[in-house]
């Protein structure tokens, strides 16, 4: 009972407080890859905590078979006692149902959004191959259109697409920077990161952490792609390309987070802050591991404690009897 309560409290803090803190931090701009890991680890950690809270409620009601050996039975009963709840079977059933709900919901949403995106990409690629014409010198498809657009279609038959308006708006150097940026998306498999984040947002709508993770991961992969492109192109060229293409769009376009995200990108390209210090990066990586490990260790602590009593065959120095059942 106590374990489940701790896990639920942790999940609530993660779901409502963490996004507020993370969105206000300035270090993600300096280490976008680490920030993506932190967002996704936080989301995974909350899902894990919720699922394990259900499991922790269910453990005391797991029937201990009398067919088990004496050793194992004693062990199982000790573990059961460690998670004891006053609610008994009803709470146990609720816990089981909740754990199954969280697992199923996550699995269905993730596989669903993966399938939908894959399908949409395939349909789009087929259509765009038909509508456009290949330009082999830049390995991209050109589509006749008076709206500027530059994007990539990830997947097995990956494709970079540019409209004629985008080509007209970009200088040669800017075009090269845009292509490098899009190829960085493709090579880095950024669509998987964006896909997981948006799948979780779909699984748990209205929960701030998942909503923020979806938006932030989408913005952060752009920064990562900018940084990769900046390895071979001037940052200023990438910035002018962003402005050239952004300025081409219809003014009445729907308001989204994209605008301010693009602004952050341009500022970041124009006046880059120093990348995060090595030690800070290392601390961040450890934090990512910790974020995922925390709910698991909270959930497992009573079981581990029970196992350390002499009742369990895993105790050092005691060999379990082989065939006593």
């Amino acid at each position, binding site marked *: 009972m106590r374990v489940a309560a701790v896990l639920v409290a942790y999940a609530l803090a993660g779901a409502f407080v963490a996004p507020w803190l993370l969105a206000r931090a300035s270090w993600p701009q300096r280490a976008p890859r680490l920030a993506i890991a932190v967002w996704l680890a936080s989301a995974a950690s909350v899902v894990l905590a919720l699922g394990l809270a259900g499991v922790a409620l269910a453990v005391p009601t797991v029937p201990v078979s009398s067919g088990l050996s004496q050793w194992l039975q004693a062990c199982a009963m000790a573990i059961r006692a460690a998670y004891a709840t006053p609610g008994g079977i009803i709470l146990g059933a609720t816990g089981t149902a909740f754990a199954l709900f969280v697992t199923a919901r996550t699995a269905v949403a993730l596989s669903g*959004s993966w399938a939908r*995106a*894959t399908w*949409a*990409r*395939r349909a*789009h690629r*087929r*259509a*765009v*191959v*038909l*509508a*456009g014409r290949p330009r082999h010198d830049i390995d991209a498809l050109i*589509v*006749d*259109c008076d*709206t500027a*657009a*530059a*994007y*990539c*279609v*990830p997947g097995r038959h990956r494709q970079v697409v540019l409209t004629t308006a985008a080509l007209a708006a970009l200088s040669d150097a800017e075009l090269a920077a*845009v292509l490098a*940026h*899009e190829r960085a998306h493709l090579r880095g498999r*950024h*669509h998987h990161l*964006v896909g997981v984040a*948006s799948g979780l947002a779909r699984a748990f709508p209205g929960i701030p952490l998942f909503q923020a993770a979806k938006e932030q991961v989408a913005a952060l992969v752009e920064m990562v*792609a900018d940084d990769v492109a*900046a*390895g071979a192109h*001037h*940052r*200023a060229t990438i*910035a002018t*390309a*962003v*402005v050239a*293409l*952004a*300025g081409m*769009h219809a*003014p*009445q*376009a*729907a*308001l*989204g987070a*994209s*605008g*301010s995200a*693009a*602004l952050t990108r*341009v*500022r970041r390209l*124009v*006046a880059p802050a120093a990348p995060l210090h090595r030690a800070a990066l290392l601390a961040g990586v450890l934090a990512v591991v910790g974020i995922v490990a925390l709910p698991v260790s909270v959930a497992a602590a009573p079981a581990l404690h029970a196992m350390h009593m002499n009742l369990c065959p895993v105790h050092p120095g005691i060999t379990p009897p082989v065939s006593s059942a």
Partner: protein
Amino acid sequence: MLRGFGDLEAQIMERLWAAPEPVTVRQLVDDLQQGRAIAYTTVLTVTDILYRKEWLTRQRQGRAYAYRPVCTREQYAAGLMREALATSTDHTAALLHFVTEMPAEEAAALRDALAELDAGPDDRPEP
């Protein structure tokens, strides 16, 4: 909503767009068979599907129908790009845009941010 074509559908649309005037299924088959062996009935069926989906119009030409695309390739491309640029669909996650649509004020703010650069030291290379 715009959807991609199947392989044969795409090949047929490709040829109809390229043709200056309406084309019969027989002409399509003759053209397609230069690339690979394909049955008349297969082409007839797929062409009929495109007609029913209202991608094609047809007119009698002797004993057969001659087909013509309803929209031009340019119109098709424009519809496709509208779809690709829509921010509210699954395409948001499916495609990775260099920069997505934004309101005019945001675009203006971008130009301002860039002006700050022009005022500062010019075009420094990467450290």
